[in-house]
């Protein structure tokens, strides 16, 4: 079953053609890593999936809902599709625990007791239970990002979107975040779309790698095939560049 289906999707920012004829299907439970140079449209693409950016034509179906259909209630999609951002976007006016409990309380109407129990379990899972009553600004970037992941998980989503979740982090923080993401990916029912430059993570966790450049998908391949030998010339150059950069 496809969780996300792009068919001939076009996206413009005014006159700028940001997504050009995107065709992409992501199935239930798949983990797809999206890579490409800066400005290639990775953020734009991933943000269309939960309606943070609108599209102008084509068809985009997410979790059975058609995003271009005026009758579609976008909040129904967002309930089941979480998102983790480069800059965390934790609620600055709420404590860590409140960050995690807010949406389940007011969107899912989860009982207080159960809500708190689930929130604490998630905090244990990301290794930050002791920080429950602090505010986001009191935590390091890596900690904030793990809280952001826990906040998304509290909604029990079917699908999680990650837009460069480790790009704003100090190198020593990256490992902890990737570890949490790997654990999520191991849950075979979770669909994940991850924009990242962490090739180690991609190699280990992704089912597929999608390469984008200038608003177009140039390659969509199994992880194994992609890393063995990218078919597209520019994908190959890009891969060489970031891998040599990593060493």
């Amino acid at each position, binding site marked *: 079953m496809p969780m996300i289906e792009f068919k001939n999707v076009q996206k413009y920012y005014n006159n700028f053609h940001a997504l050009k004829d995107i065709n992409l299907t992501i199935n239930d439970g798949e983990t797809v890593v999206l890579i490409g140079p800066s400005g290639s449209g990775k953020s734009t693409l991933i943000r269309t999936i*939960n309606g*943070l950016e609108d599209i102008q034509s084509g068809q985009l179906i997410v979790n059975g809902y058609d995003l271009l259909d005026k009758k579609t209630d976008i*909040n129904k999609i*967002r*309930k089941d*599709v*979480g*998102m983790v*951002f480069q*800059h*965390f*976007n*934790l*609620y*600055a*006016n*709420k404590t860590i625990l409140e960050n995690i409990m*807010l*949406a389940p309380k*007011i*969107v*899912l109407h989860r009982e207080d007791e159960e809500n708190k129990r689930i929130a604490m379990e998630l905090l244990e899972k990301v290794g930050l239970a002791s920080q429950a009553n602090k505010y986001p600004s009191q935590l390091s970037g890596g900690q904030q990002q793990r809280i*952001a992941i826990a*906040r*998304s998980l509290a*909604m029990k989503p079917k699908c999680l*979107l990650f837009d460069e979740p480790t790009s704003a982090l100090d190198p020593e923080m990256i490992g902890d975040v990737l570890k949490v993401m790997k654990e999520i990916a191991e849950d075979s029912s979770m669909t994940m779309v991850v924009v990242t430059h962490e090739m180690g993570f991609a190699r280990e966790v992704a089912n597929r790698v999608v390469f984008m450049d200038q608003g177009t998908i140039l390659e969509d391949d199994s992880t194994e095939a992609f890393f063995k030998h990218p078919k597209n010339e520019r994908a190959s150059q890009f891969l060489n560049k970031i891998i040599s950069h990593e060493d």
Partner: protein
Amino acid sequence: MIEIFQNYGSDLLYGFGQTILCSVIALFFALILGSIFAILEVMPNKLLQKISKIYIEIFRNIPLLVITMIFYVVVPMYFVKISGFVAGTIGLTLYSSAFIAETVRAGILSVDKGQMEGALSNGLTFKQSMRYIVLPQAFKYVIPPLGNQFVNLIKNSSILAFVAGFDLMYEGNVIAADSLKSISTYMCIGVLYLIITLPLSYYMQHLERKLS
């Protein structure tokens, strides 16, 4: 000055009361109206944005006296008879609400865009995101400029004097004419305005410090 207070104490007190009453009513409704139009202006809906923009531009760019006169003169001609106090309070409310809307809108826009995006992708509706996440944070930014708006509003309530609203300014004019002591009368009036505005200014500054 003391003489003025002794001879016209009850008139001054009445005017003082009317000024406070008008200010409190106008402040209450201007804050509500201003916040509503500010939120409409940042909503994704283009039509609502336009409506609120027009409202704000109209009331911000017409002199308060003209708005008040419309309510004092024109409305009674075609609709219902209203007193100078009511006309002045309505005029003051609409006029101030436009400035408050601009202030609140600026506050909302100064909250990092990521806060709204985080809330929306967490499953909250636009309304819930505003209510639980964006507005409480905007509040902090809005307090200092809003304090200025409040003080302006109180000073602007002297518009009531033009439409026989029996406020402090109106009483001042009457007393000045009656006592022939304009200088000390208007000094008394000035002091009475300070008694209202200074504590408010200080309170807002205190609130600002407490929030930061």
